């Protein structure tokens, strides 16, 4: 599968996750978010940027537990909790935020 945006074709998997990590930029992220019905605010970008940095360092998307813990460390307990993250990404921080961050679809039985 693939989609077109700003005259460029983006290759995705069956669920709409970008295949090439390097295809990602802020504009295409905002476009994917729009398709997901998510309006990106600074708070949304914080999460997406964290996910991308984490992925670049460890080549894997963080488990939700680690995401929460790291968010807590960086931004305090009012942001380091699951209710906050689900509020930003109602379809789930793992599924939706990873998609917008241009990471592969998280696997596992959640």
């Amino acid at each position, binding site marked *: 599968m693939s989609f077109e945006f700003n005259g460029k074709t983006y290759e995705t998997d069956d669920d709409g996750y970008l295949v090439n990590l390097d295809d990602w930029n802020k504009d295409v992220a905002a476009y994917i978010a729009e398709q997901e019905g998510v309006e990106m605010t600074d708070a949304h970008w914080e999460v997406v940027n964290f996910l991308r940095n984490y992925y670049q360092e460890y080549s894997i998307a963080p*488990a*939700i*537990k680690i995401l*929460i813990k790291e968010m807590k460390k960086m931004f305090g307990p009012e942001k380091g*909790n*699951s*209710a906050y*993250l*689900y509020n930003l990404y*109602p*379809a*789930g921080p*793992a*599924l939706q935020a990873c998609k917008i961050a241009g990471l592969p*679809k*998280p*696997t*596992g*039985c*959640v």
Partner: protein
Amino acid sequence: MADDLNTPLLDELEKGPWPSFVKDIKSLAGKKEMAKDLLRQLEKSYEDKRGYWKHGGLVGVMGYGGGVIGRYSALPDEFPGVSHFHTLRVNQPSGWFYTTEALREITKIWDEHGSGLTNMHGSTGDLVLLGTRTEELEPTFRALTEKGWDLGGSGSDLRTPSCCVGPARCENACFDTLAINYNLTHQYQDELHRPMFNYKYKIKISGCPNDCTAAIARSDMGIIGIWKDDIQVDAKAMAEYVDSGMDIQGLVVENCPTGCIGMDGKEINIDNSNCVKCMHCINVLPKALSPGKERGAAITLGAKAPIVEGALFGSVIIPFMKIEEPFEEMHDLIERIWEFWDEHGTSRERIGEFIERVSLATFLEGIGEKPLPQMIKAPRDNPYVFYEEYFAEEGEGGK
């Protein structure tokens, strides 16, 4: 009837006097293509001796990470009716009490949005709605919540707490199982709906050591009713049992696991200091014997089925706790356990495995509890009876 099914192997399962899931599903096959394809796919599974479900796939409803279990057919072209066949777990009422009105509500919603098939109840305790499509998830969820229902837990979260009927119908209940179940469910909504644990965490609540929710074998955390003082004896009722000619020596005295019961004429003598609270005498002589007056619960940790690591029974972590509103002592304990497990546990590590790995001593220190004689070094690890031939088969074929 669904004559076009052609499922000779499944039809075998309709024979005999016992209930049959094939019969159940066929009763819906007339109006649901989903039910038909479910049977056809299963028939093929029986023919080919393999399953045709694809496991997993992340599906859910907005705002929740749990409650929906994704199921897809591996043969969607052959069996389009079950190309999606997701399961929804609906949070059951405490003790599984329903009005007929509530049951009608649920079946009506499920008839409209899903296969119509239910499983009451799954071993998690939830009311399970079997089989629907991804696009039906949100409408189903909306219909359920409009009527005051909610989804249960799934994945690495707090699973829907579940309890026995307790004092609502049972004289042996040592505390109000329904009240604490309701309280914990509400107290931990976030943990229930948004998976963020290392792995699942099940809480089961039984009012007495008969343990009707099987908490000792099936819950990461079991809350099991128990008493501290002596078994209460009604001497008059006891004498009536003796007068009735009942074989008390054979049925009760000789079956006491610690041999702490003796008969003196029509009088029963129980050496309570040696009683292990097995409930046998109370179960056999319900009119004469009942649990003591100083009642509470023992808390066990660590039971699990043999996934990832082997099976474990729960073992005692708190020998006795009063279970009373507003249940703050319990909240405090649960949160200390979660905090330590969350900090030091690894992914997909159940609390029982975690305790085994770090040792009970370390765990106790981590949650701030003192070692007690009621704790044991290692819990029993095999709640099942395995037959030799099963072992042989496993060794040959592998999985």
